[in-house]
């Protein structure tokens, strides 16, 4: 008997097509970044990491915004779907933030002469990463599934409110930071560069969508498993928790 894929036909379709699309986009972006985009005048070839760095930063904010919305959605409606989506989005967002935090210093070292400065954008990203690691830790240390969802939602809300506040305060703390690239207006970017940059954004959006498409049905399956175990009269919390840990 073939195992039923959790989430039904649409989820199954998304799970197979989205990763393929992601792979195609990633290959295109890689080609664009290495061969199509011109060599940056001042920074040279190392600037090419920008096409993977900045889009990941943008999409990670999107992911945490989704967590924020899902957290509010869960507290307002108490539908487990919101909670599962929030958790999936946080995990994907943390992966993207990690990519940002790894690629950033690699770029900064030759350009700024240092891996790290305590500048607003860098510091905010690091604090962001820590806050959402806290979100996952809250989940890990809370046994009761409903309580876990509620506590995580509160962290998801407070954490997101905190992000602009952290940015603002570090910005004031350090004064104005050196503008890396005129990304915000898009005007300073060469048209070819902008194309590759956009391609990078699409790549990460597709990656985010793939991870969500894989993780949300998995979350549903976890909830179903918990419910089945409860129905079978096993002791719920510990076994379900250890089972979850073993599976993912």
């Amino acid at each position: 008997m073939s195992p039923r894929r959790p989430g039904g036909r649409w989820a199954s379709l998304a799970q197979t097509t989205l990763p393929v699309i992601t792979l195609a986009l990633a290959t295109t972006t890689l080609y664009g970044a290495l061969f199509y985009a011109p060599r940056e005048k001042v920074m040279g070839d190392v600037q090419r990491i920008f096409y993977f760095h900045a889009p990941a930063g943008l999409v990670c904010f999107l992911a945490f915004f989704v967590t924020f919305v899902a957290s509010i959605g869960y507290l307002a409606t108490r539908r487990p779907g919101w909670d599962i989506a929030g958790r999936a989005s946080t995990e994907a967002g943390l992966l993207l933030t990690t990519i940002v935090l790894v690629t950033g210093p690699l770029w900064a070292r030759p350009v700024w002469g240092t891996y790290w400065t305590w500048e607003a954008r860098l510091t905010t990203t690091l604090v962001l990463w820590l806050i959402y690691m806290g979100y996952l830790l809250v989940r890990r240390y809370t046994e009761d599934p409903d309580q876990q969802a509620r506590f995580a939602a509160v962290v998801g809300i407070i954490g997101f409110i905190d992000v602009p506040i952290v940015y603002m305060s570090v910005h004031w703390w350090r004064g104005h930071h050196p503008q890396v690239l005129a990304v915000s207006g898009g005007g300073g970017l060469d048209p070819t560069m902008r194309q590759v940059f956009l391609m990078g954004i699409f790549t990460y959006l597709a990656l985010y969508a793939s991870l969500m498409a894989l993780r949300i049905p998995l979350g549903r399956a976890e909830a179903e498993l918990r419910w089945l175990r409860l129905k079978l009269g096993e002791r719920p919390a510990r076994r379900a928790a250890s089972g979850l840990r073993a599976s993912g």
Partner: protein
Amino acid sequence: MTVRSPAALDLATPGTGSAVERRRRLSGPVREARKALLVWQKDVRVEWRSLDSLPAMFFFALLVLVIFNFGFDLSSARFSDFGPGVLWVAFAFSGVLAFGNSFALERDADCIQGLRLAPVDPGSLYLGKLLANCTSMLIVEAAVLPLCAVMFDYDLAASIGPMSVVLLVHTVGFGAVGTLFGGMTARTRRGDVLLPILLFSISVPFMLSAVRLTGAALAGEPISEAPAAAWLVMAGVFDLVFIAAAYLTFEYILEE
């Protein structure tokens, strides 16, 4: 869900007819503020009788100062560089003890159920707990600061006014975040680990402005002028944002 009927409050606090009437005439916000004060009163009384947190907080804060002194060689000449940061690390660390204990106490005495059944809004309960935690922190700060002035030889008397404002604003900020997460982590496993992780990642902005403003106050700069005034306003706004967010979400922390 909490019972919110105003009649329940009257039943809970038996009094003469006129007193009941008087209470009934109080408007909603005033009544909730009064309940928050009652929660604060309760916590202060419990702390006064048991002295469960304050001594530990005081000695821990002092110990942090001693440790940092060895870590950085905080002679009086270098105190202006490192002092404000060291002070706030000490205050924040000792605050964690208050936030953690505030709800662990209720949990251990099986009182969370009682608090939830009491005719008090979760938000008011939060505000009462926040007031109590801030009171503990402020007492510790008031005790540590003069000692610190003696140990590191700086002129506290000259900056006592601005320092009080800075202490108050940032204690409320740390308290706002800490009280919320203290309530949460009292009900998780490894709450003692989880609370500082959540608190210190969220309260980075308070740390920044607290250190900056304390530096300004100890250096004798007026905090009513820019740029210190801007920091102070910002910290005040952050206080309000976090209190509002916690006030609204505390209900979900308390829920069974």
